[in-house]
């Protein structure tokens, strides 16, 4: 079974040379730590920076330079700053090759819910709706089940949607799955996880091929 770092490491394998990547808050943020050495990628933050670098050294933080999670950051050589309209032009115009974000629920046709729980305080969707509606390549990083042990991979989402039929790939603590043809397709097992465990933790329609390899991390 993977921990959050394991999920981030597995998603980092999806990075390709030349990708512009938008990482959501939480597990997705960790992906930046595991970029393979032999490729160049640039991280976009929707509040207006391309070429995000690591966090600043203590004492060198700049209040004018933050990421979408409002954390202080640095900029790499070759970075660019821009306004929010230009930032979402990049996203909506599909210039960002990969979007990684968390989710509360994903359905078997690729719907995603990650912004609102009825009856609880709603903080807003931020840039998530633009990201999921626009990206050609979205990977969801999440736990396979919620804190109550219920599957987050469903026939239909029960929560208000963030986007429709947009998720193509999911990496959870248990497995890598793809979504097409109205079903989850099991691609890889997390280390030490059996196919049965994944089947039991998946409420939506799940296609299991004869051979399910274990992830190589």
């Amino acid at each position, binding site marked *: 079974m993977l921990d959050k770092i394991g999920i981030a490491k597995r998603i980092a394998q999806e990075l390709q040379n030349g990708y512009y990547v938008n990482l959501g808050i939480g597990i997705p943020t960790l992906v930046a730590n595991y970029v393979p050495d032999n490729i160049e990628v640039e991280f976009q933050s929707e509040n207006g920076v391309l070429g995000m670098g690591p966090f600043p050294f203590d004492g060198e*933080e700049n209040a004018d330079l933050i990421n979408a*999670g409002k954390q202080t950051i640095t900029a790499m050589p070759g970075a660019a700053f821009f*306004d929010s309209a230009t930032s979402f032009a990049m996203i909506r115009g599909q210039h960002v090759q990969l979007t990684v974000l968390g989710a509360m629920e994903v359905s078997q046709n690729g719907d995603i819910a990650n912004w609102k729980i009825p009856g609880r305080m709603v903080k807003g969707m931020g840039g998530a709706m633009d990201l999921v509606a626009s990206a050609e390549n979205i990977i969801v990083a999440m736990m396979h089940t919620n804190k109550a042990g219920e599957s987050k991979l469903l026939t239909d989402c029960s929560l208000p949607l963030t986007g429709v039929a947009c998720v193509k790939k999911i990496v959870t603590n248990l497995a890598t799955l793809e979504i097409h043809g109205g079903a989850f397709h099991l691609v890889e097992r997390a280390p030490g996880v059996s196919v049965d465990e994944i089947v039991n933790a998946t409420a939506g329609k799940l296609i299991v091929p004869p051979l399910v390899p274990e992830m190589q991390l």
Partner: protein
Amino acid sequence: MAINKVVADVQEACQGIQSGMTLMLGGFGLCGIPENSIARLVELGVTDLTCISNNAGVDDFGLGLLLQGKQIKKMISSYVGENDEFERQMLSGELDVDLIPQGSLAERCRAGGAGIPAFFTPAGYGTEVGEGKEVRVFNGKPHILESALTADFAIVKAWKGDAAGNLVFQATARNFNPMMAMAGKITIAEVEELVPLGELDPNQIHTPGIFVQRIFQGKDYQKRIEQKTVRPKA
């Protein structure tokens, strides 16, 4: 000759802002917010404001200060976390909240400033954001029609500015400020440094002065950091 937009101070800059008006306020979180003007709005005590701003500040800073004084009737934002008083007023029904996808918010402000009354975007299709909005399929993909936003006053904060109203922003403090500057019937710009005319390179202006009606040099900027995140020195 350049048209002179300089006003003496924040008091003069905010003249005419009245209760019930719609205001746009630049900034992302606490980054790039018009601190001086927000403080002046608290002083003025104007109420029943509709505020278009990506976020709502924190309890004791940014738009949180206006929420404390119950000056805001409605917020139009993409994300409003980090604010307990906001949550209290929203749950009690005192505060009306319209949540908009961040990219649609930015583009709707730009559209308002650019004379584009409506445009199609895929963001929000099939969600409650799309409810009641026209849907049209382009290239096989459903989009919803979103409309322009404008405001009685737009209030923005820049790094540098000149008497012609030209503005230059610093790093990610730019965010929503340029589009909101475009969309205000009257746009107030507060700047950290008001430089002599001709000092800004005309190639390097982020917001041309035509979008700014009043400009002044602000003071005592706190520039608070919401999430100080650092790594140890090696």
